[in-house]
């Protein structure tokens, strides 16, 4: 029972943290709640479909279909997180205070909501399909501990969701002047972490060289299987045996998205200054 609780907790945690952070980051965007719920729903339906076609996906592209699928899903998520964060940098002050700007922001808000929808749906899809396969495996095996394991699985889902809600509630408690900074740093790290994971799948598929592999071994200090290790893995991409290429992708994502945010923020300030002068 405990074993299945831990597995489901680990599977759910990643999606729950992503949803928690994004739910907090977009709380002032009108309509974001509905899009978020739609993303979870579509992600759940999608994960059942992906789980049912695991063998088909796996055999695509000479047996590396699963790696390609994961890398593409992660790649799209990175692009959407980048778009989200740059959009937020450009609109932060308007979202926080300037109600007059809302009229012109609604159209932009809609495209922001579709990015949110896609990120949530993809996060649920990726983690969800593994959960579906695991739970299906328990349900299909006629053992005596079956119902206890299913119960454990459900407890794991609940525990993962609680952590996701915890980060959401924690972020909402932050003072407004810290809030945008904190959420955009978290989203930036999530994006870099996903870029590193995408590189991991491409290396596993033998489509990318690993470069120094592993670059280091920190499993003795912080194991990825521990709760702290898993949390850090999801939040900032911690790995105990990363390949050099993963670090290249991580740093590139940090640099590109960070520069985009900086430029968008600078542009907004310039516009504000021009308005005040006029």
């Amino acid at each position: 029972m405990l074993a299945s609780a831990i597995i489901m907790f680990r599977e759910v945690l990643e999606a729950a943290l992503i949803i928690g952070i994004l739910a907090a980051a977009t709380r002032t965007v009108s309509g974001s709640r509905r899009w978020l719920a739609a993303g979870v729903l579509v992600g759940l339906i999608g994960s059942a479909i992906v789980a049912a076609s695991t063998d088909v996906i796996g055999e695509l592209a000479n047996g590396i279909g699963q790696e390609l699928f994961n890398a593409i899903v992660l790649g799209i998520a990175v692009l959407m997180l980048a778009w989200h964060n740059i959009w937020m940098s450009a609109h932060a002050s308007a979202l926080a205070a300037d109600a007059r700007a809302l009229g012109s922001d609604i159209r932009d808000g809609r495209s922001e909501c579709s990015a949110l929808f896609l990120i949530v749906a993809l996060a649920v899809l990726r983690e969800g399909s593994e959960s579906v396969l695991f739970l299906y495996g328990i349900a299909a095996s006629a053992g005596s501990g079956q119902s206890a394991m299913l119960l454990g699985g459900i407890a794991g889902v609940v525990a993962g969701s609680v952590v996701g809600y915890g980060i959401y509630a924690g972020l909402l408690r932050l003072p407004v002047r810290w809030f945008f900074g904190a959420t955009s740093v978290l989203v930036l790290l999530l994006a870099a972490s996903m870029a590193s994971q995408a590189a991991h799948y491409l290396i596993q598929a033998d489509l990318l060289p690993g470069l120094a592999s592993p670059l280091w071994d920190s499993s003795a200090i912080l194991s990825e299987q521990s709760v702290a290790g898993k949390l850090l893995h999801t939040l900032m991409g911690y790995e105990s045996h990363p390949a050099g290429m993963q670090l290249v992708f991580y740093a590139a994502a940090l640099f590109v998205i960070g520069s985009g945010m900086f430029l968008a923020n600078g542009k907004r300030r310039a516009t504000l200054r021009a308005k005040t002068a006029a």
Partner: protein
Amino acid sequence: MKYILLISILFPPASFADENVYSLVIKEHRFQPVEIDVPSGKKVKLLVVNQDATAEEFESHSLNREKLIAGNSKATIYIGPLAPGRYTFEGEFNAKTAHGVIIAQ
């Protein structure tokens, strides 16, 4: 997608000599063989055949690999080049029984 296609053109999967392909069977939630000896410093291809009806997740933090293998199906996992040493792996969905180790020398 374009990016991935581009990457796949830039880095075509290396072809493997027969001696660098190793097979691993999952049966009744156990790996067979439990121990695989591979040469160090070379890329190795693992062919995993899951003979169980349920899915399994091949996972190894020391190899930096994880892969879902559907019930009654096959999967390919590329590993290495490895430094000499022991690399444990497990089936995450059945961690009680599914264990194995790859020994690179």
